């Protein structure tokens, strides 16, 4: 009996006092896809790594719910990213934009191309 009581206490901790919110049932299929995309690209502010989709932290679930609400209210993806960035800093945006990180994307490609060129020309030279 004592065990059961203890377990029900746990139930209470788990119990979310949210009355009206269904799990994103206010969103259509396209919006749900957007929610998934956004959640995969927003970092959990309290975890060492991971997005809010893959985190059990309460803040992650809250953020996902908030993003769902924002989608429902008509915010665009960019607007939502900006809002999150405003609040937590660039750190929380996992999506790595090519335009903002040109060097990071270019360096490996350049290295690859130059290496292939070097190797090929050296090989041709040595064959002669």
């Amino acid at each position, binding site marked *: 009996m004592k*065990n*059961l009581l*203890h*377990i029900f206490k*746990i*139930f209470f901790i*788990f*119990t*979310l*006092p*949210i*009355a009206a919110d*269904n*799990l*994103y*049932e206010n969103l259509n299929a396209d919006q*749900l896809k957007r929610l*998934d995309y956004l959640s*995969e*690209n927003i*970092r959990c502010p309290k975890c*060492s*790594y*991971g997005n809010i*989709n*893959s*985190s*059990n932290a309460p803040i992650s*679930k809250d953020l996902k719910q908030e993003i769902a609400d924002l989608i429902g209210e008509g915010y665009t993806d960019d607007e939502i990213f900006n809002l999150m960035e405003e609040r937590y*800093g*660039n*750190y*929380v*945006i*996992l*999506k*790595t934009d090519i335009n903002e*990180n040109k060097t*990071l*994307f270019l*360096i*490996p*490609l350049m*290295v*690859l191309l130059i*290496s*292939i060129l070097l*190797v*090929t020309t*050296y*090989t*041709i030279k*040595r*064959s002669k």
Partner: protein
Amino acid sequence: MSKKHSNFGTKLVLANFATLIICCGYLFLQFLEDNFSFIYVFENSSILLPTFYKISAFWSAHEGSFLLMILFLSGSMFINNFFFSGQDWMPISNATLAFILFFYLVFQIFTSNPFLTFDVLPNNGTDLNPLLQDPLLVIHPPVLFAGYVFYAVTFSLVIAGMFIGFDKKLFQSLKLWAGVSWFTLTFAILLGSIWAYYELGWGGYWFWDPVENVVLLPWLAGTAFTHSLIFSKNKILLSWMVFLGISTFLLTILASFVVRSGILNSVHSFASDPSRGVFLLSLFGVFAFASLALFFSKSVFLQSEWPKLLSKQYLLVLNNVVLLAILLIVFLGTLYPIVTEVFYGQKLSIGPNYFSSLITPLVLILITLFSVEQFPKLLKINKRKFLLWVLSIALVVIIIDFLKISALSVGLYFIALVLSILLLKALVELVTKRQINIAHKVLGHLSVVLLTFAVIANHQFSESLDVRLKPGEEVEFSNTVVRLDSVDVEGEMNFDTVVANFSIQSGKTQSNLKSEKRVYKIGGVITSETGIVSTIQRDYHIVLGDRFQDGSWSIRYSINYGIMLIWISSILLLFSMLYGTIRRHGY
């Protein structure tokens, strides 16, 4: 070096190993006897902890796990001396490994002593982190440390080679150790992925998490290294091989540094207790400097042959270049945020899309390279053939663009094509010649192609749904019906749990699975245990969320495609590595 000296050396190695065994045995004993006066035991164990986990608690945190790594290093030296006694390279290899062992021990004693005690004896410990109370996460660290340690051995062999020259015997030993190291490290990474998928509950097996990435670095170098050993007979690409052998080992130290220094949580936590991080980083610097100085000074010595254009060896060099490009991408993406935090005070994140968008095309190139290598006739190219190839590829690209097929689908089709061609070739060879030439190579590459296919398919087709269900309710999703049958409460030795029972109907088949939420008695940590049901094609995956006031539960239901394929192809890959290593040595 006289026989007397090397005998003495061997005895020292034995003594060292024996001492370490006693040390570790003593610590194990403290865990088994619940001796919480030791701080390390106190922090990682408790009276209620099942015995199996009391043993694994030894390597559950930094101090003990490092001690385990040292034990393995000493053990490897012992194996070396025991099975390869009398080899020319033994003294230098022993010396190198002894150096490493010495520095590791200094580090252990001064910054990470697991034998520190309290003055008072506490009644109970604070329990092992529940996440670690899992069989997979019990084997993963030891296998990983073994991988790191084995690469230290290959490093020592490479160093020996730089001094005494690379002869056939050294190459043989090198290939054996390289194969073992590669197998072990790959196995360790696979275990980590399996654990992440089945235990972390997020339905993913790879997150481009810095901790994951940092282990990928030595693996990539190790792959290039193992491949560079293939042509050792003609001493082609000797300098590549040496460089890669050194780099792989250095990267294992880097990996240890990044994970153990605390720098990943934030530069903050690193700076507040920099002793460990600085030590490891300096160790990295010292070994890097010494080995690279040696490499460059001996490079005249290592004057090796260079391959001809479009020869197999040339393709191998290209292969290495691509592998190193991937290494660079992972390196940059993982270390860049750390660097910016140090220099600019800005915390930023590099997300998975950086890695996948750059690495996927490179993997496709790799697959093309090693598949083309299987058909040497293709390589006998002249200007006319080359032009034909370019034209046909251009045509294909135009058609794809016209039909607006997504890049991922293209990749999928391409890989399916390559897979079929390779399979066909293998089958034909099997039928006509009754055996396959270099079977492990064929199997290994096939499994890589299969793995890539499975990964892309998984990314492309998997779906998930967040839903709220009461016991007895059901929901339809993607041609399946999920029903929450019941929610029960149970208790185990060190945790209580809420178990939700589900049934999934797909066509005519019904599957049952359970998803739990556990509360650990000490510390009150709450974990989610995912329910997974697998078929070859796809997994049904359910994570139990929170309970709402009206008695309904939030649930994340995912259908993940290709997971079993990923594991199967990885195991095939491992098998090919193992077979290749053993086969080379006439066992």
